[in-house]
């Protein structure tokens, strides 16, 4: 990591914290964002010359506050009408803001400000796309072009999405507040879903030819880490972090030297990131301790990821445990994809006859390449090679990305060669 990387890491780590308090004290997320952006530019210019300050957060807070005051003064000078625009919480005049900001160094109030920021970005009155965009921009401090690239939309589209989201927060008065205890479970689920969605997009990109997006995966983990740190008593927040760490540990082994995808069964397990697995297991055990014996969806998924990550090989995987975990997961979330993964584990535990039977009971996956590929695998093991080739052919035509098409075509070639 060179000096610029260190600098960017510090800015990404401290930025949201500075922003969270600034948004409350100036009462306007858009102004706070602009002020922090300007402060960040100043830091990128000054720090390489002076070195990173001992307390970068305080440095950023002071500069961002000054920028925010300038912005507010300019704004109120422009039109009296605009100064009547909505302000969160304190209806503070610019001069009083200086005093209000003095409280920012208190950790407990900082924690509350961070939670306010998170729950505002993921408020259910905002669409899922807007929540994701705001979370990556505001919480992960990703630049707009990077977010646009990650979701394969034009930069202007992503910029517009963010402007609209911020303007809805201000105009509809989405409160800068931590949800009440009764609302918290639903609101927390929405926040975790946003992070999970970012991780899913990283793990299986919906477009392009990459097997995974490592940069986006790192952002998802950064957000999950933030949530786990802020809400250490919420088992699902800890479980999500565990799940993402355990999954990310395998990312580098999911591609071969030529950039082709490698499935879990064929991966070189020595390439797995042992540190990430160890950390994931530690968070999972913490989540289990806190959940009082009731495992919810992310915890079960983390257990599944752990079962794979700790297995010495595909053959030596504890398939009985994995089938059991999928049964549990299927009992709380009805999903054909869960049933499909369960069926794959059944094949390994009980053989292809049982696996095939399990696959055929699943409805609603007729257009899923994964379902056809799983059917093909069982048929091939049963010696029904020509049927297997037929299913693989269907799977190839249904595959949503180039990467998966290549993988399935490779398998189809192998099966056809067995046909002779």
């Amino acid at each position, binding site marked *: 990591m060179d000096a610029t990387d260190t600098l960017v890491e510090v800015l990404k780590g401290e930025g949201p914290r500075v922003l969270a308090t600034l948004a409350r004290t100036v009462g306007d997320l858009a102004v706070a964002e602009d002020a922090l952006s300007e402060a960040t530019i100043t830091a990128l210019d000054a720090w390489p010359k002076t070195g990173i300050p001992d307390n970068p957060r305080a440095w950023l807070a002071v500069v961002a506050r000054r920028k925010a005051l300038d912005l507010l003064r300019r704004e109120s000078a422009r039109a009296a*009408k605009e100064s*009547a625009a*909505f302000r969160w919480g304190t209806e503070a005049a610019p001069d009083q803001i200086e005093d209000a900001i003095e409280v920012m160094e208190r950790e407990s109030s900082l924690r509350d400000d961070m939670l306010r920021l998170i729950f505002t970005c993921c*408020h259910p*009155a905002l669409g899922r796309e807007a929540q994701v965009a705001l979370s990556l921009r505001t919480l992960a401090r990703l630049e707009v072009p990077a977010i646009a690239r990650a979701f394969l939309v034009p930069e202007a589209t992503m910029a517009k999405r963010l402007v609209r989201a911020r303007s809805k927060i201000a*105009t*509809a*008065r*989405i*409160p800068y*507040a931590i949800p009440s205890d009764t609302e918290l479970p639903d609101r927390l689920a929405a926040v975790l879903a946003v992070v999970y969605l970012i991780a899913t997009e990283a793990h299986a990109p919906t477009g392009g030819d990459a097997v995974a997006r490592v940069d986006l995966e790192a952002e998802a983990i950064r957000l999950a880490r933030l949530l786990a740190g802020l809400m250490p008593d919420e088992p699902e927040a800890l479980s999500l972090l565990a799940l993402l760490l355990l999954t990310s540990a395998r990312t580098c082994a999911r591609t071969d030297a030529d950039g082709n995808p490698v499935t879990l069964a064929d991966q070189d397990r020595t390439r797995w990131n042992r540190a990430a697995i160890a950390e994931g297991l530690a968070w999972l055990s913490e989540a289990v301790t806190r959940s009082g014996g009731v495992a919810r969806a992310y915890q079960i998924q983390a257990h599944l990821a752990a079962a794979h990550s700790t297995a010495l090989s595909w053959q030596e995987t504890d398939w009985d445990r994995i089938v059991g975990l999928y049964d549990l997961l299927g009992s709380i979330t009805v999903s054909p994809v869960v049933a499909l993964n369960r069926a794959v584990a059944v094949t390994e535990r009980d053989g292809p006859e049982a696996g095939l039977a399990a696959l055929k009971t699943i409805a609603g996956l007729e257009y899923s390449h994964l379902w056809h590929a799983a059917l093909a695998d069982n048929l091939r093991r049963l010696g029904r090679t020509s049927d297997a080739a037929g299913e693989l052919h269907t799977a190839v035509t249904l595959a949503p990305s180039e990467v998966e098409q290549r993988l399935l075509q490779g398998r189809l070639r192998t099966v056809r060669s067995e046909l002779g």
Partner: protein
Amino acid sequence: MALYVALLYYDRDKYWASSPETEFSPEYREFARRATEAGVMRGGEALHPVTMSTTITVSGGEGGDVLLVDGPYAEAKEVLGGYFLLEAADLDEAIAWAVQIPAAWQGKIELRPVAPGHA
């Protein structure tokens, strides 16, 4: 404090099947009483059925041809049955009131912030 208009939408078929109400029913009067007592209610009316409505378009810019259509805008599945004007501190508070309006379970409610200072 901010003003929100709660627009009360009903499924078109159900709305026509029941006798069109041109005034709020007892359960609506009860909601209005509670909201008024809490100082949230700033106005509201039931609307005549959509068969009474006229949709207006001026084509070709200001001063252009006036086109009138008998009935509501578009062939929407939902029709607007009435509205309330609610005053609340923020969106969460407005939502907390909106969920108590019968249309919330009989149909749907759209909450929209009112742009101030243009009346």
